[in-house]
Every structure is written in C-alpha cells, then in structure tokens.
C-alpha cells in the first residue's frame, strides 16, 4: 500500500480506561483510505479495544473512558456536534460472533437503510438488499428465501449476512472484530476473499488472532502488546523483517 493514499482515520495518543484499569497506553496511528489493515497481538493486548474506539462502541460499556483524539476525515469523532449515530453509519462494524437479528434475511439487511432513510421506495430498498447481498457473495444462496429467518443460516453465511448488513448502509470504514474466529476454514476463506473485494470500496480494519489471515488479507499490519502499539508497517515487512524483538517473538510463536 502506498502511503500516498489519503488518511482516513488518524488516532493520536488514544488511552482507554476501564474503571481504574488502563487498557490502552497512548496509541497513535493512521489508517489510509481503501486499505485493509489488520491488528494482531496476544489476547488482552487492546487491539479489540482500539478497534471499538473507532466507532465509539466503547461508549456502551460502563466505566469506560477514552482520551486522546481520533479524527475521521480530519474531524474529531468525539466532538459534541458529531452524533454517534452518524459516526456509526459511516464506520460500520462486524462482530466476532455472527449476530443476525432474529428476523428475516430481508429485514436484517433493510433495517439499516430504513433506519437512516436511505430508501424512499420499496423498490429502492429491494435494490439495496440485493446489491448488499451480492457484494457479500450471499445473494445466490439466499435469493429464494429472503423471508426466512437470518438465524437459520450456517455460521459462515450468518457472518456474510452481517457483513452485507453493515455494507447496506454504505459506510466508508468497516471494522471487523475477529470475524472468522467462529467459522470453519472454508467459511473463513470465503470471507477472506470477500474482504479482498470489499477493499475496492471500503477501508477495512480487521482484528485477528490468526497471523496467516493477517498476512493473507491485509496491506498493513499493526502489532499490539499489553496496551501498546509495538509496531506498524506493511504486512510483508512486519512478517518477514520485524523491527521489534517482541513482534518477532510473537509471529514466530514464542509467546502469545
């Protein structure tokens, strides 16, 4: 990834506290437009916490306090004038465990667009649902049963449904929190291909425990350890020629 791409998200000295417990010790990094960046690191290193800062999902956790600045397109996402609803429409999220609504497949996809008033007519909504499902590579599998519950799909299909659901509101950034950790290898590879296609249109930040996955899908990789950002760089460089001892130890499996 060339660093000439415009900066999409710029974080400066982000610290997160859960009550008295500090989870992040001042993270600074830039995320460029239309890149796939992956966060790796051992459990509890703060990578998911940092991911959740980017669409302020940490707001929903009690006693959680975030300091520092995160700019989205140059605008501070914590500024009072910015509604968190607007932010989350711009920065979508896919969770670790597939969490479709216990409603029909159609309703799962159409919920977001309806919420934000993106479709004026039923036909527009149908279009959004179809194109979102097509982009998530799920259309051919579900087009005949859009009225059936989304919870009746297989795990991999559910996760693609969740991806389709998040791209239905046309976000600019998609945050993925270990999206494949609950899936089998085949479903994982389908999602990885999907991520590759989606980066044409979206900026994708993905948290993963699977280093091969990070190597396969991402342009850049950031390594977190104990709430600190240890190293960030082009994926190839990080995996073949890490600058830090701790990074090297982690990717060679010496701890983690």
């Amino acid at each position, binding site marked *: 990834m060339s660093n000439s791409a415009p900066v999409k998200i710029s974080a400066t000295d982000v610290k997160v506290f859960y009550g008295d417990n500090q989870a992040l010790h001042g993270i600074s990094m830039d995320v460029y437009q239309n890149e796939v960046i992956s966060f790796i690191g051992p459990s509890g290193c703060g990578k998911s916490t940092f991911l959740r800062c980017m669409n302020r*999902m940490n707001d*929903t956790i*009690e006693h959680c306090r975030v300091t520092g600045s995160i700019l989205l397109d140059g605008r501070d996402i914590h500024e009072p004038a910015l509604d968190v609803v607007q*932010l989350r*429409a711009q920065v979508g999220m896919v969770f670790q465990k597939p*969490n479709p609504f*216990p409603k029909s497949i159609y309703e799962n996809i159409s919920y977001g667009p309806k919420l934000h008033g993106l479709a004026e007519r039923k036909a527009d909504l149908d279009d959004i649902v179809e194109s979102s499902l097509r982009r998530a590579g799920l259309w051919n599998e579900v087009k005949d049963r859009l009225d059936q519950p989304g919870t009746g799909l297989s795990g991999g299909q559910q996760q693609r449904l969740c991806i389709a659901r998040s791209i239905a*509101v046309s976000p600019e950034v998609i945050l993925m929190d270990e999206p494949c950790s609950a899936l089998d290898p085949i479903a994982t590879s389908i999602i990885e291909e999907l991520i590759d296609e989606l980066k044409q249109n979206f900026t994708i930040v993905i948290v993963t425990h699977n280093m091969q996955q990070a190597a396969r899908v991402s342009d850049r990789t950031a390594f977190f350890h104990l709430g600190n950002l240890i190293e960030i760089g082009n994926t190839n460089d990080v995996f073949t020629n890490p600058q830090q001892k701790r990074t090297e130890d982690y990717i060679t499996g010496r701890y983690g």
Partner: protein
Amino acid sequence: MTIIAENPIKAVAAPSQVQQKVIASLNRRHRKENLFRRLGLTAVLISLGLVAVLFINIFSKGLPAFWQSAITLDIYFDPQIIKIPPMPQQRDDESDNDFRQRHIEWQTEIGFVNFNRLITDSLQKILPDANKHRRDLARVVTSGERFALRDMVVADPSIIGQTRTLHLLTDANIDVWLKGNIDRSLPDGQQQLSPKMREWVDKLSADGVIQNRFSLALFMNPDSRSSLASAGLAGAFMGSFYMMLVVILLAVPMGVAAAIYLEEFAPRNKITDLVEVNINNLAAVPSIVFGLLGASVLIGWFNLPMSAPIVGGLVLSLMTLPTVIIATRSTLKAIPPSIRQAALGLGASKMQAIFHHVLPLAIPGILTGAILGVAQALGETAPLLLIGMKSFVASIPASPFEQASALPVQIYLWQGNELRNFFEARTSAAIIVLLLMMISLNGLAIWLRKKYEKRW
C-alpha cells in the same frame, strides 16, 4: 479366538488400582442418585395428589350449586293486581328530561305492585290447603323472583292479562331440604322448614313441579341477603373485572416502563442501587399493608370512594408493580447483548436498538410476568378487606367508581354465611369461577408466550 469372542471379559486385564477405587465408589454414587431421584419423585407425587384432592373437593362441593331447585308455575299476570297506567310514550313537544321523569314515575308505580301475589295465587291452584298456611305459602319461592316478574312487566307491559309458564327458584331452605343437605330426622324445632312446608315440598318434588334445574342466578345476580337462593357472583365478578382493568392499565405499562428505564438507561450508582433494593423490598411487603396504605392515603387523603374497584385496583397495582418490574428486568437481562451491539453498530440509537430489537424479543417474558402478576392480584383478598370491599353490596357496579365486592372477598363472605348448608356449595362454586379465571389467565400467558417466542 472363538473363546474370546464368546466371553470377552476373560481377555480383559484385571482393573488397575485406580479403576478399582472408581468401581468401589460407583455403588455409593448410584445409591445417592437413586435416593435423590426417589425423593424428588415423591415430592412431585405428593404435590400432585394434594392438588387433585383440592380440585376433587372443590368441584364435588361446588358443581351442585350450579343446579338449583326451581318450581314450575303458570303465572297469570292479573290486571287486578298489576294496576298500572300504560307505559309512557314520548310526545313530540316533550323534552327528553320530562319524558325520562315520567318514565321513572311509571317505574316507581310498578314498584308498588305486589308481585308476590301473582306467585301465591298461582301456588294456591296447585296446593289445595294453601289458604290455611299463608305464611308458608309466601316462602316457597325465593323473594328475589318477584323482581324477575316485575322486570318482565317493565320490559313488555303487554304481558299483563296473559299467563306464562315460568321456572322460579325456590327458597334456599327448600333447596337444602331437597338436596339432602340437612338431616331429615331432626325434630321440628331444629328444622328450618315448617312441617307443612316439608310436606308440600316433598309432594311437589314427587309430582315433578319442583325440579333441580341449571340456574344462571349464580352468574347473573349480585349478592343478596333477603333472597339467598338468588344470591349471585355478578357484582363481585364485575368488581374484580374493573380492578383487573385498573391493574392492567396502570401496573403493566408503568412496571414495564420502569424496568426498561432501570435496566437499559439508568446509570449504575448509589441511587439506582437504592431503588433496586426497594423494589425488591416492595415485592416482599405483606399485602395487607398495601390495604392500610389504600385506606389511609387513597380514601383518607384523596377522598376516593370506599369499597370502589378504583381504589382496590390502585392498591393491587401497587402490589403488582414490583412483580412486573422484576419479571421484565430479568427478561431484558436475558436478551443476548450481541443483538444490542448489532443494532448499535448499524447506527441505531439506544432507544431504537431497544424498541426495535430488544423489546420484541422480551415480549413473551414480559407478558408472562405481567399476566402472572395480574393473576396474583386477582386472587388477593387481604388489602381489599381494609378498603371496605367486604361490605355487602347488592348491586352490579356499572363503573369502577361504584361500590363493589371482589371474587375472593365474596368467597370469604359466603364462607361466613349463617346458612352453612346452602352456602357451602355456593362458596365452592365461587372458588370454581375464580379458579377458572386464573386458569384462563395462565392459559393466556402460555399462549402469548408461545405466539411471540422466537429463537436466536
């Protein structure tokens, strides 16, 4: 090979020391498990048996009350006795008020008519020696039936001059006598019916004039003390109905709203902790205390009417509120947080996430909690005694602000009635009605839960 196949155990090596210990402990474990299983089964059987005893007892006692002794009489609506002017018609130049006034005067005039004469005249025709025992004669038919005759005339004055065959309820004591609920060998002094009356009743019963008929009196009439045979549950039923209406309209929406706020919106701090503790405390307050509260605050300060279902409903709402809140909160807690996150992640506001996704999933649990709370309120007696609902009310309330009784209170009142051998059956019949209401409420809860239940 064949030997091993026939008896493979011989081929297995002797169990190791660890295995021997496991095997030794197995017996003890199985014994404990069996004992526990039997204990549990016994407990279930005992409770089922007790429920069966309760139901058999109540139904065997209560069902006969739905059939009452009724006498078949040809009633001649004698114009000599019913001397009333024709029913007033509204004139063109007359205002509604004036007409209503005239109508009321006409009804008052009907009130003076001695409808009992119609009954005694009719009885005289079938009882040859009736004239010598006029006191007894007037007691054959229960006194409430004269109003039934009056209502027939008011509804259709053209009936005057005609003869109608009617089934009229007999006096409660006759019912007791015929059903064998009194010892027939008791001396005259201890019998509730005079010797002449007993002779009549036995004869009429043998002739088929007095028969045991299914009677709607129990359902259609309010309570009565002058005409025990026609005392019914309608007043108490409507009282309970209005109270449940108040509870459903007040306690359920307030409880659900409070639970949603406490569970989803309220910050966790000392104040909400205090509120939470007190809601749990409220659920444990003895119900009679709520009755005292209703008497002193609602009746004493706010001057709400005594014995009125509105007061009873408010008191029961207070009592039901914690039940609804606790049930709703635990249901909300059980909704997986991933659903909330999914909605929030798409850009739904907190309120939208709750109302679009969490509440629909919580509805079956909320409804179950609410209906069980209402059912509990329906059976509550103690607080109602303190706000005057145990007073005798001989009318069917037309609104929640009129005096009324309630089903469980009516059961309590009838249980204490002096005419035990008549009211024992009626009390059980009232319990049957109450139980049926409870069962249908619980059935509704189950049906709603099944209907709205979704898996995720």
